[in-house]
C-alpha cells in the first residue's frame, strides 16, 4: 500500500432550469441554433442592467437548504472582473462575499456506509458564452451567456475517485429530485473543477494543491483524479515532490493525462466588488420556510425507508430511487396497499421494461398505480394467472384502456375444481401410456400433464388447483 493518501476537493458548476436567464429576460433553453436566445443585456450593450430572476434565487436557496448550508440574511451579488471573449460585460455577476449557502454537509452512500461530505459554499452566478474553437477561427454562441449557474464547492475532504463519483451522483440526484436542473452532461449542464493533493498517510498537513479545470463527465472526473494521484505519488516516491507545484491543469481526453495550463503566479486577480446594480435582497423567513417545505424526500431518505421498512434490497432500491418520478410512483403503489416487494417487482420488471421498450417517460405512462393494483389484486384472488396479468398489463398500456375493462372481457381463470377435474379426467384418459411411464419413474412427465391442461384451457386453468388435482389423480 502506498504511503501517500489523496485529498480531493470539487467545484461543481451546474446550469439551472428556468424560463428566463438569471439576469435577463432571454429564454434559458438549450438551442442548437447559436445566438438565438440573446438580448441587449446578454450582449452587454451600453446602459443595460441586470434584473435578478426570482425563480433562480428560489432554486439556489432550495439547494442551499438541501445541502444543510447556512443561508445569508440578504441575497447579494458581486462582480468578478476579467477580460475574455466569452464574457461580454468584462465581468461575471456572481456571489463572492456572501454566497447563498455556506458550511453545509451531506451524507453520501459510499462503500456500503454513509460518509459525510462537507460543503464549503454554494453560490448563484451567470454562465458565459460558449466558445467553439475551429481550425483557424473561434465561434461564439451567446445562448449560454447569462444562463443561471450554481457553483458548489466542497471542502477538501474526499479521498479517492470512487468517493468523488459517489458524491457527484448524490448531488446530481439532489438537483434532479428538487427539479433544479436536469444535469444533462451532454448539454454541458454539469462541469467540474477538481483539486487534488497528496500527503503522507496520517499527516495533518495538506500537500500542494493542483487544480484541473473543466472536466465534463463522470468518467473523466474519475480518470482525472486517478491520474493526478498517480502522477503526484510517482513524483513523491521518486523524491521529486517539489515538482508538484500549485498550478491549473486541464484534462486531455485523447491521452487521458492532465496538462499544465497556468501556474499560480499567473493567477488572475478578479477584483471582486459588490454589484452596484443589484441592491441586497432581503430573504424573507416565511419565503425560506415555504421553499424548505417544497424540498422533496431525497434519495438517501428514501433509500433508508425502502431497505429497512419495505424490505427491498439495495440493488432494487437504487433502481427505483434513481429518478424521483419513479420513486414517487412506487411509493404511491405502496400507499394504496400494494405489497412492497410485489410493487417493486412489477415496477422494475414490467413498468421500467415497458417504458424502456417504448422510449417513454413515466409521466407519459398510461397505467396509474390504482390500475396496477387492480391487476395485482386479481392475481391475489386467483382470478387471473401471472401470465394473464402480464398480458392485461401490456394490452392496457398499449391500448390505453383500464385493466378493469380488460379483466372482465377476458375469460377469467378456471378455478372451479369440478370443471378442472372433468378436463383433467379427459386428458388422463387419453394419455394412458404417459401415466404408465410416470408411475415407472418418469416423474418429470408431471409437467407434461400440466401443459396438456393449459393447452386444453388456453392457459386459463388455475395452476395451483390443477397441480393439486393432478397430484391427487396420479398418486
Amino acid at each position, binding site marked *: 500500500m502506498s504511503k501517500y493518501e489523496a485529498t480531493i476537493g470539487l467545484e461543481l458548476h451546474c446550469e439551472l432550469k428556468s424560463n428566463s436567464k438569471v439576469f435577463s429576460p432571454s429564454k434559458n433553453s438549450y438551442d442548437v441554433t447559436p445566438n438565438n436566445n440573446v438580448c*441587449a443585456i446578454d*450582449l*452587454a*450593450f*451600453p*446602459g*443595460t*442592467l*441586470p*434584473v*435578478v430572476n426570482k425563480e433562480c434565487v428560489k432554486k439556489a436557496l432550495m439547494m442551499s437548504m438541501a445541502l444543510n448550508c447556512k443561508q445569508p440574511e440578504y441575497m447579494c451579488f458581486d*462582480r468578478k*472582473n476579467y*477580460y475574455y*471573449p466569452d464574457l*461580454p*460585460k*468584462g*465581468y461575471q455577476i456572481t456571489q463572492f462575499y456572501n454566497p447563498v449557502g455556506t458550511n453545509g454537509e451531506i451524507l453520501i452512500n459510499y462503500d456500503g456506509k454513509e460518509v459525510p461530505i462537507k460543503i464549503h459554499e454554494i453560490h448563484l452566478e451567470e454562465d458565459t458564452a460558449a466558445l467553439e474553437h475551429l481550425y483557424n477561427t473561434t465561434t461564439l454562441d451567446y445562448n449560454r451567456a447569462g444562463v443561471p449557474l450554481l457553483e458548489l464547492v466542497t471542502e477538501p475532504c474526499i479521498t479517492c475517485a470512487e468517493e468523488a463519483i459517489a458524491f457527484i451522483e448524490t448531488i446530481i440526484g439532489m438537483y434532479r429530485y428538487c427539479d433544479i436542473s436536469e444535469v444533462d452532461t451532454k448539454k454541458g449542464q454539469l462541469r467540474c473543477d477538481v483539486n487534488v493533493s497528496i500527503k503522507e498517510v496520517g499527516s495533518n498537513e495538506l500537500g500542494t494543491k493542483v487544480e484541473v479545470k473543466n472536466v465534463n463527465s463522470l468518467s473523466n472526473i474519475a480518470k482525472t483524479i486517478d491520474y493526478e494521484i498517480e502522477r503526484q505519488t510517482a513524483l513523491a516516491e521518486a523524491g521529486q515532490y517539489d515538482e508538484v507545484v500549485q498550478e491549473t491543469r486541464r484534462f486531455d481526453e485523447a491521452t487521458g493525462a492532465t496538462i499544465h495550463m497556468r501556474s499560480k503566479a499567473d493567477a488572475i*486577480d478578479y*477584483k*471582486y*466588488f459588490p454589484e*452596484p*446594480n*443589484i*441592491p441586497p435582497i432581503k430573504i424573507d423567513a416565511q419565503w425560506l420556510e415555504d421553499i424548505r417545505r417544497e424540498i422533496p424526500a431525497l434519495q438517501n431518505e428514501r433509500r433508508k425507508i425502502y431497505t429497512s421498512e419495505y424490505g427491498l434490497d439495495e440493488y432494487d432500491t437504487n433502481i427505483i430511487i434513481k429518478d424521483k418520478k419513479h420513486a414517487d410512483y412506487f411509493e404511491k403503489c405502496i400507499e394504496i396497499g400494494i405489497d412492497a416487494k410485489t410493487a417493486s417487482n412489477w415496477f422494475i420488471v414490467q413498468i421500467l421494461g415497458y417504458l424502456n421498450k417504448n422510449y417513454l417517460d413515466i409521466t407519459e405512462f398510461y397505467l396509474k398505480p390504482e390500475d396496477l393494483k387492480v391487476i395485482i389484486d386479481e392475481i391475489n384472488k386467483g382470478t387471473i394467472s401471472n401470465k394473464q396479468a402480464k398480458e392485461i398489463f401490456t394490452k392496457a398500456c398499449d391500448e390505453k384502456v383500464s385493466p378493469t375493462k380488460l379483466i372482465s372481457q377476458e375469460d377469467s381463470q378456471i378455478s372451479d375444481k369440478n370443471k378442472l377435474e372433468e378436463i383433467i379426467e379427459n386428458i388422463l384418459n387419453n394419455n394412458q401410456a404417459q401415466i404408465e411411464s410416470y408411475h415407472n419413474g418418469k416423474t418429470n412427465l408431471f409437467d407434461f400433464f400440466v401443459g396438456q391442461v393449459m393447452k386444453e384451457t388456453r392457459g386459463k386453468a388455475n395452476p395451483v388447483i390443477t397441480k393439486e388435482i393432478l397430484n391427487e389423480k396420479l398418486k
Partner: protein
Amino acid sequence: MSNMNKTIKELHELLKNGEITSEELVKESLEKAHQLQEECNAFVTIIDDANPEKVTDNLLSGIPYGIKDNYSTKGILTTGSSNTLKDYIPYFNATAIEKLNKAGAVKVTKTVMDEFGMGGTGTTGHTGIVLNPWDKTRICAGSSAGSACAVAAGVFPYALGTDTGDSIRKPAAYCGIVGYKPTYGMISRYGVFPFASSLDHLGVLARNVEDCAIVVDEMKGIDEKDMTSWDSKNINLFANLKEETEGKKLCYIKELCDISSYPNADEELRLHLENFHKTIQKCRNLGIEVEEVSVDRKLLNALFSSYIVIYSAEASSNMSNLTGIIFGPRGNADNYIDMIKDHRTNGFSTLIKRRFIIGSYVLQKENMERYFKNAQRIRRLAVDIWKDLYKKYDAVISPVGIGPAKKIEDINKSHDTNTVTLDEYLCIANFGGFPSITIPNGFVNNLPVGVNITGNCFDDSNVLNIAYTLENALGYKNQIAKEVKNNE
C-alpha cells in the same frame, strides 16, 4: 420672435391656444442649435429631421428638448462623447427617453459631455471642448456640458443630464441655470451609459425650478428593468410646488462656507462666498431658519479622494464591455486580446485610461482594504452625518464650486486641499443618493454663480419647494446667457 427662451408652461399655453405650433418651435430650436454649435460646440448630433409632436394636455408635448449623449436613443447616434462608440446607434431607448416620447416631447439634439461622464470640465468629449455661452474663454463644467450650454443659450427650455459627482449641478451653476438630480433610483437608469453605477443619477437642466419639476415628473417611476428604481407615484413635484418658508430649517457647513478656511483665496472665491452669505441672509429674511453646523474637516477632505476611488473602481468595471467586439469600431489585430487593446488604446482619452488604472489598482487584492474599502467606509460615515443633519434640518445649503466658470487654461490649476474640497464636495449627494438642486444666486465678475440645496432621500418635494421659494426671492429665474466681456 423668440419662443425658446420661454418656460414650459408658457410654451404649453401658446401651443394649446394655437398661437404657435410644435413645428415652429422645432424649427426655431434647430436654428438656434446650429448657431450655438458654431459658437460653443455643444452638440454631438443636431437632429435636423426631428418631427414635431401633436400637442396634448401633457405640458411637454410638442416642445423641443436636448438629451445628453449618454442616453440611448433608438435609431439616433449615441456616443457618450467617446471614440469607442463614435458610430454607435442604439436599437432601444433608455427608459427615461421612452417616457418622454410618450409625453410627446421632441428630441432635437444630443449634447456633448465629458467622455462617458468623466471629467467635469466639458473638455474631454471626442468632438471637442464645449465653451461657456457667457464667456467663451471659460468652460461650462461637466459632464453635462452641452446640455447646460444649450439651455443657458436658449436653444430649448430643458435638457437631460446625468450626475455622478456634480455633473448636472456644477454646469448649471457655471451657466446660470437650474440643475436638479432627484433621489437615487427615482428615475430609471436603464439605457443610460453607466459611469459609476452606485453614484449615477439622471436629472434635468432647465431655467427654473418649476420646469425641472415638470420634466422629472415625466421621467421618474419604477422600472422593472432597473432594480434600483423605486415607486414614486406618491410624489408629484409639479403639483406640490409651492413657496414655503414656515418651519423650514436649513444649515450650512462652517468648514466649507467660511472664508477663513481659505487663506489663499482668490478674488473670485471671496466674492463667491460673500454672495453665498448674502443668499443665506435672504433666506433668513424670508423666514427660513438657517444655522451654521460644523463637520469634521478630516472627513470633508476625505470625500473627494473617496469619490475618486469609488468611481474609478466602478468605471473600470462598467466600461469593460467596450471591447469593440460586439459593438463599436473593431480594433485591428489578429487575436482578440490585441483587438481589444487596439480598440481601447485608440478609443479612450488619456484621462479615462488614467481612471481605469486607478480603478484597477484600488480593486487589486493587496490594495482593496486600504483604498476601496476605506473609501466605502468614508462614504458611509459621511452619509450618516448628513442623515443626522436631516433629522434637524430640511436641507443643507452650500455654494457650488469655488466661483464662476473656470477659464479653459485654468482647469488643471492646482488648489489647496480645502479649496479642492469645496470645489468637489457636492458628491456627498451622490454618496447618499440625496435629492440635490442648484439654482443661480447671482454674479461674480459678471459671470453666474450658483447655490445648492441638498435634502434627504425621498424628500424631493421639500427640496424643490425650498429652491422654488428662494429662486423667486433671488430674482435670477429664467436667465438666458448674454456674452460678457471681462477685460483683464
